[in-house]
Each structure stands twice: as C-alpha cells, then as structure tokens.
C-alpha cells in the first residue's frame, strides 16, 4: 500500500505525535476542571481566632481547637456531628469543638433560619442549650432542606425552652447578622463547602479538613496537632 493510498484512507492517518492528542485533551480537561479548587487557595486566609462569642464544647483552655463550619441541612454535617462528639469525649481537656455557621443558601434555603434558631436557643438557654438544640436538630432533620420549619419551636420545647420567647426571637431575625459574619469568616478561611473544619494546634498551625472525613483521619491530625507546642 503506497503512502498516497494511506493518505487517502477515509478514516484519516496522522503523524505519530498526534496519536496522544486525545489523552492530552482529556488530561487538560481534568486539570481545567480542578482549577477552581486551586484557585480557592488564593482566597484562603486565616480563620478568626476562637473568642468568647464562639460556641464551644469541651474545655475552653484545651490546647487544640477544632473549628467546624456547618450547615444544619447538609447531610454530611449531620453524619459528621457524632464523629466530633466522639472526638471531644475521647480527648477530654485536650480538644475543644467550636461550631460556626456556614449555611449554603443556594442549595439549602432553610438553613439560615435554622442557624438563627440555634442562636435563639443560646440566647434563651445558654451555651449548653445551644449544643442540645443543635444535637436535636441534626438528629431529626432529614437533611437537604427537608426539615419542616414548624419543628424549630418544637425542638426548643424539647430542650426545655419556652415556645413564645423562642418564636419571638426567631421572628425578629436579630441573629441574622451573626450568621452572616460566620459565613464571611468561612469564605475568608477558604471553606469550599460543608462540613469544613480547621484544627488549630497550640502553636497556631492550622490543618483544614474538608468533608465528613472518618474518625481515624481526625484522630491522626489531632494527634499531630497536639505535638505542635
């Protein structure tokens, strides 16, 4: 078969260098798709230090702080919640869990109001009630924006709060600004979604954990963080 004949092949022949072009195209496409993740690194900043305004479970003087940015309608946050409870229980006095709000309104429009509900629980019942309210909310929500808003005052009653002042607080929207401030903090820290956790070592070094990672991953990172004096 002559070269002339080959060049006339209806399928088309190509130089050897061109043979890899599909692979290069695929690789380039995958890199392009991954770019948003790298681009977010440019935006990553330092998370706001833990302060008196934060909700904290565990000893305030604990050397390691685990700051979670959570969305009450995120199914992964719901599954992550017991893992963090276990961490605090298994590292008494060593790890404190800080909860900050990061409702993703684009996919969970009900989440901001639920975040406000947890703040109303804190206002009316204190820090312990904030956590029992949050535990109960995660326990009963089907996630993905499927919690009936009528459940919010019922949860308040379940954790021992009076219904009327809770409803009044929720209706006022007075905690909306705090939720918005937490969202700004999450975005400034470079949170790509929820759950997003920042483990702060005693020397200030931070370890960011994206997603509902297994208990074993958290344990490994916390053990490393505890050694960073």
């Amino acid at each position, binding site marked *: 078969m002559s070269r002339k004949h080959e060049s006339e092949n209806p399928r088309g022949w190509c130089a050897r260098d061109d043979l890899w072009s599909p692979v290069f195209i695929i690789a380039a496409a995958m890199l392009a*798709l991954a770019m948003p993740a790298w681009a977010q690194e440019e935006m990553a900043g330092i998370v706001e230090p833990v302060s008196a305004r934060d909700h904290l479970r565990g000893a305030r003087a604990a050397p390691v702080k685990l700051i979670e940015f959570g969305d009450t309608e995120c199914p992964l946050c719901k599954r992550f919640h017991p893992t963090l409870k276990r961490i605090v229980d298994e590292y008494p006095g060593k790890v404190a869990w800080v909860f900050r709000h990061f409702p993703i309104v684009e996919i969970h429009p009900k989440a901001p109001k639920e975040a406000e509900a947890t703040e109303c629980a804190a206002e009316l019942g204190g820090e312990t009630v904030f956590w029992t309210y949050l535990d109960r909310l995660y326990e009963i929500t089907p996630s993905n924006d499927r919690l009936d808003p009528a459940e919010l005052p019922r949860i308040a009653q379940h954790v021992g709060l009076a219904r009327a002042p809770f409803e009044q607080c929720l209706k006022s929207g007075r905690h909306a600004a705090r939720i918005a401030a937490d969202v700004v903090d999450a975005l400034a820290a470079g949170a790509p979604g929820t759950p997003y956790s920042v483990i702060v070592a005693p020397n200030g070094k931070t370890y960011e954990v994206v997603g509902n*990672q297994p208990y074993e991953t958290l344990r490994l990172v916390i053990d490393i963080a505890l050694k960073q004096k």
Partner: protein
Amino acid sequence: MNPMDTLRQNPARAMIEAGREVLGRPAYLLLAAATAIIVLAATLWLPNYRLIGAVFTTPGVALGIKLQLLASLVGGLASNFGAVAAVSTAVIPILFGVDVAMLVYFARQRRARLARGEIAASLGGAASGAIAAGCAACGSFLLLPILSFLGAAGALALLPLGGAELGLVSIALLLLSIYLIARKIATPPVCALPPAPATHQPTTRNTP
C-alpha cells in the same frame, strides 16, 4: 462471524471482547490500572490537598503517619458519599482507565485519528465524573460553582439523589465512549472492498 456483526448483535459482548484484546496486553492493563488509581486517588485526596500539604510539611511527623493519613482519607469513600455516589465514585475511575487504555491502544495500533464522538463521550464522562466527585462536602468543589454560574443551584434540591445523578451520567458517557472505541477496534484494519456489482447468478443445472 464478522466482528462488526457481533457488535451489532451484542454490543456488551463486543465491548468485553475489545476490552480483553486491549487489557490482555500487560502494558495497556498497567495503563488502565495506573489511570484508575490516579483518578480515584485524586477524587479522594484532591478535596483535602491542603490538609495533606500541612501534614506532610509538619516537622517530626513520621512517614508511616503520613501514609496512614492518605489511607484514612480513602475511608472518605464510605463516609462522604451516599450508596449511589460511592458506587459511581468507585466505578468511574475504573471505566475511565479502561477508556483511556482503549483509546491509546486504538490510536497506536491503527495509527488513526479518533473521531470526535469517542473523544467527546470520553471527555463528557471524565468531566461529569469530576463534577460528581466534587461533593465530598456539601456545595463544594465544582458542582455548586458551576450550577451557581448557570443560575441552577436550586435545581440540586429537586434531584432525587441530590446530585449523585451526575455520577450515573458519567458512567453512561464512559460506557458510550468504550462502546464507540470497541466498535472501532472490532473493525478489521483493512481497506473496505467496494460493494460487489450486481451480477447474474449462474443457474445450476443438473447435467446428465
């Protein structure tokens, strides 16, 4: 039977036969396995590359602990995904590896250009797989920014599987790409004969 006839009658069998032809060669099996492992690792590790970087640059952390971290993040396959998403997250890298091996095999063996159909299906499968795999955290990575850009983020809430459908789309596209390339591989590498001109059939006669 002509391979093209097999393909037309039973595409699944033809895909398996083409897969055997390609993956029966150790170099292509290695290419498929390496691609699958890289894609799976990227799916599970890429969302936490900052964590991996922070741990790997922390002084005094033993290599064993660093490797344990990488292994523990693989557990995210179970904790971060629902049943459908976990299965598609595991299957997509395998199909993508097979797809890449078949594309390279065909391109090298036949020294032929690939048609846009195969490349488009392969790219579509890889892209939708990457987007689907982005849900290691709610709203994270690729899916939400893309849907927000399209003004369709709210549509996620309407999907019965909450976005895991994209993984199924990715599997379908990769299977389509494999089918298209299997069809090419099954085609004999010869110049096709022109259709035979109609001729008068000789009549058979019993001659005494």
